[in-house]
């Protein structure tokens, strides 16, 4: 077998399956809800495939079969007309039975997907053009904190997200874990899901929300419960003071250059509420709502010209000297 034939064969057989796996795939479920949806989908898919193949087969046979010889179009065969009429109506009844059956299958799946658990861990998520504000709420205020664009959850525990919007309609969607739910201005929606396995699952805004709708993603990082507990305790703490001179300089510049007008860093004088909370920005894996991985190079590029990376976003380009940029960057990197 020539090499290229083998390559093509391998591609044809493995690639479609490989393509289904992924961080953002409804076909590779990692949560209880997405699992349920996939089962429902496969039932529908099987019924649909059978119906479609049957229709195409009947069409093909109808075209190829030997025909009765007649001379004029109106020379109809009475027996055929009657049988055809009965058959058509019979198939109509069959169609009705199938769709009613599928409706019940669908409703059963729907009840599972939207089942509510009283003891779910509650998060509040507020959609902004074009990023996600995430509130971890607890009974005592000192256990509540705010973060952005990265949601860490414990595996195996039901999570309830309360969804609101600060501006236009967005939609919260993490296909690996569950289907989507809209964040609607002036309305509170909620969604529950449970991650079965630890992992990083990407989500993305699914309702067109303006210029940078394409760059409004986030990660859900599912952790084993004890690891999640440690992360949560750490997030509860205020930002650490910078350890070195350059870091302190960066902290001062963060206020002096206007960053603090929009961004909050708990435990410091920076208390802006318009942009994402940066208290622990150094520990996040991505920046700009899942647009870029978080490292000194990308963060530096972002701060020096946010409009180049995500045109139209609400963060203005601030005039910074290169040494000022380095200081701010150094400071933010320390906010683990």
């Amino acid at each position, binding site marked *: 077998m020539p090499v290229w034939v083998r390559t093509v064969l391998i591609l044809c057989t493995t690639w479609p399956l490989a393509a*289904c796996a992924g961080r953002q795939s*409804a076909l590779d479920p990692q949560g209880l809800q997405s699992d349920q949806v996939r089962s429902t989908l496969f039932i529908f898919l099987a019924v649909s495939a059978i119906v479609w193949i049957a229709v195409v087969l009947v069409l093909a046979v109808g*075209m190829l079969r030997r025909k009765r010889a007649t001379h004029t179009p109106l020379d109809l065969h009475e027996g055929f007309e009657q049988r055809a009429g009965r058959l058509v109506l019979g198939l109509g009844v069959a169609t009705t039975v199938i769709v009613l059956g599928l409706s019940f299958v669908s409703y059963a799946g729907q009840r599972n997907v939207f089942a509510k658990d009283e003891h779910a861990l509650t998060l509040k998520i507020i959609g902004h053009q074009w990023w996600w504000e995430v509130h971890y709420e607890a009974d005592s205020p000192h256990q509540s904190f705010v973060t952005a664009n990265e949601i860490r959850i414990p595996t195996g525990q039901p999570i309830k997200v309360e969804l609101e919007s600060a501006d236009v*309609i967005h939609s919260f969607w993490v296909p690996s874990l569950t289907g989507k739910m809209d964040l609607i201005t002036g309305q509170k929606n909620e969604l529950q899901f449970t991650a079965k396995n630890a992992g990083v699952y990407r989500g993305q805004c699914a309702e067109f929300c303006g210029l940078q709708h*394409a760059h409004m993603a986030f990660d859900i990082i599912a952790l084993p419960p004890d690891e999640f507990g440690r992360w949560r305790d750490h997030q509860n703490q205020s930002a650490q003071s910078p350890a070195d001179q350059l870091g302190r300089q960066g902290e001062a510049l963060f206020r002096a250059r206007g960053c603090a007008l929009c961004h909050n860093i708990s435990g410091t004088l920076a208390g802006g509420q318009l942009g994402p909370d940066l208290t622990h920005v150094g520990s996040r894996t991505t920046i700009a709502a899942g647009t870029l991985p978080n490292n000194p190079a990308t963060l530096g590029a972002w701060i020096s010209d946010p409009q180049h990376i995500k045109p139209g976003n609400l963060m203005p380009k601030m005039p910074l000297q290169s040494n000022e940029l380095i200081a701010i960057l150094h400071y933010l990197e320390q906010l683990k």
Partner: protein
Amino acid sequence: MSMAAEKNQLRDDVLNGFQLSQQLERIWRTPSGLPGALMSVDHKVVGRRYIVTAFVFLLLGGILAVLMRIQLAGPENTFLSADKYNQIFTMHGSTMMFLFAVPVMEAFAVYLVPLMVGTRNIAFPRLNAFSYWMFLFGGCFLWISFALNVGPDVGWFAYVPLSSLQYTPTKRPDVWAQMITFTEVAALAVAVEIIVTVFKQRAPGMTLDRIPLFVWAMLVTAFLVMFAMPSIMVASTSLILDRLVNTRFYDSSSGGHPLLWQHLFWFFGHPEVYIIFIPGTGMVSAILATFARRPVVGYPVVILSLIATGFLSFGLWVHHMFVTGLPQLGAGLFTASSMLIAVPSGLQIFCWLATLWDGRPVYRTPLLFVLGFIVIFVLGGLSGVMVASVPIDTQVHDTYFVVAHFHYVLIGGAVFPLIGAVYYWFPKITGRMLSERLGRWNFWLAFIGFNIAFFPMHILGLIGMPRRVYTYTADMDWAHLNLLSSGGALIFALSFALLLINVVYSARKGTLAGDNPWNASTLEWATASPPPPQNFDRIPVVKHRDPLWADGESLPVVAGLSAERREVLLTSLAEAEPQVREASPEPSIWPLLAAIATTIFFIGSIFTPWAVLWGTPPMAIALIGWFWPTGSKEDEA
């Protein structure tokens, strides 16, 4: 009218043959020259313009689709900016839905329905001319705005609050909303004309159960337009009011609600799909009967299915809103109602399959497109059953799965029959056949290109690609399928280039068609190709559902209509028994002037509310001119 005058009037029963044709042609023809062209009220002239204009918009919308596919062919492509991409997908959707799909179906109805029911002109011919001008001006308004970088960029659905003044403080959403108003007016006008033409102007003897299936489909469509369009009219007008004069219909902080928009929009938006699809089924039935060489099996089943589809289409708009946080049981009920529409659609498919089964198919291009329609549309219908399920929809809603689904339904269900219809009726409209050879290439390129372009989108949606994103990153594993899809889109676009070449070439050089080149059964084939201005020298009498097959070349006719002035025969609604002779309007410039006045009013009013004030007198003048009594013979009677 006195008895003496009645006797002296020239009727078509005293003339014969060539003399009669000449006389009728003289009174029914459109005046020559540019003024004549602007005054025409002939349904064939208006219908032809309507069809050509709608196809120009198809071409423009198609070019936008190709631009989008180029942008999405690879990850992080910079071919289009985010702003341009958002304008382009909005323009693509708005153009295809409002300026191509609905108008082109109505255009075919304007041209064909009067011929198929055997009358001389459509009901309310001046309104018909007005409707065309409104459509043309509305479409030009949208596209000129786009060229001036004021093209709408909030999606063809223009969800609030994104389309509100606060979040889009430009004129772009106003342009969109007012374009809707133009097309609403145009569509409602045609709907009224079709309903009256079908109810009152059918040839004697064409009882309700002898109306051709295409005409039935257009009748049901006209009723859908009448009931669906007011909803979008309320929605878009409220949006303009919110934006222009600070009303608060959709503002949740003042007692309005963004979901109000979604309910109103989809109460229109879902029937809209059937406004596009039902005419497609009518075309399928017409083509199938002719090329399977027998009448469609189950005529009453098909008609009842059309009517059932029409009713059901108003009961399932909520399936566009399954992820807005509705009560679960309510959402579940809309799952069932959405799936139920598979029953009438299925019944029609079964009737067509039975027709092909028993028929002796002649595989010409129109039939190929119908066969392609069945294969594609059934797949689209089944993916529609999937998206009707609430749990499945939570995953696939607003993803490329839905993009794949509705292109299978709309292109498969409406565009394939439409292209088939172009091949089928082109000889009637122009007198020449389209090239069969190019036609076959056209079909196969369209069929293969379409499936390569749109099938992978099902998978893309399931592996996480949302709609309306101008780009995506390389690590998302979407690149291969997107590239494949873009390649398919180019092949699909090529098939339309072939169609254009075929039309341009065949219009001049094609084989002459003759009256009835396909040996079809309905009345439009009983007259010359292209038909003379009066359509028929004598009004045919219908004694059979397939008159040309039953009576051959010698159709019975009635005589007695005036041969001195424009007159049509009105018949009773159910039995089509002759009732009265009714005058039909002469050519007039007033519909054009009224459309110009209305255009000034509409466009002015997105800039200042005062336009409602100063825009009204010109419209009033135009309407007074339009309806000024002319002292016609009928008026004296």
